């Protein structure tokens, strides 16, 4: 059924995981600001680990929300 997902970071080696890139990291967050599981995004375990670290670093610097506010 579903197409096999490929890790975006493995597919494109030039793509870096950086806590300062709040735009890029935003792709791996829900609208509420929760981290999207690797099984949904297809990210491999290695990159998902780095991704979560980067997201948490970005959160601590208020570049990303811990949780979105209610409208």
């Amino acid at each position: 059924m579903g197409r096999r997902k490929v890790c975006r970071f493995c597919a494109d080696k030039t793509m870096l995981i950086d806590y300062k890139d709040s735009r890029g990291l935003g792709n791996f967050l829900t609208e509420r600001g929760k981290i999207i599981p690797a099984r949904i995004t297809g990210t491999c375990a290695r990159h998902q680990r780095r991704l979560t670290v980067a997201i948490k670093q970005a959160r601590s610097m208020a570049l990303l929300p811990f949780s979105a506010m209610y409208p």
Partner: protein
Amino acid sequence: MADNRYETLVLIHPEQGEPGLKEIAARIRSLMEDQGCTVNQVWEWGMRDLSYVIAKQRRGLYVLFEYRATPKALQEITRNLRLMDPVLRFLSVRQAENAPPASARPVRRPDREELGEGGGGDFDGLGEGEGA
């Protein structure tokens, strides 16, 4: 002595304004140099919206430092940053020796600088989640 590549992002109280940012950035820089670090780059991001309220502020000033330091020096820098009142937050990260410089990485997001102070209650630092 062995030194490492580090990068430190500092969040400064918005009250300081852009001139205050420059001054504090210069202070931090000289602090680093006093510790025997070589500062490679200083990036002033300027005023940005915060994703959540820190110290009752919705916006803040960011500066990014790229430098080489010994672990001892980093400790001392960290201690001093904690003592600086206008510094709300900071984050030091060790960079791999072969990592590209910060300038080569995507960072810039021009923020609404034109929005005056006390612009009311709308909170729009949350737009990060959209777009695929």
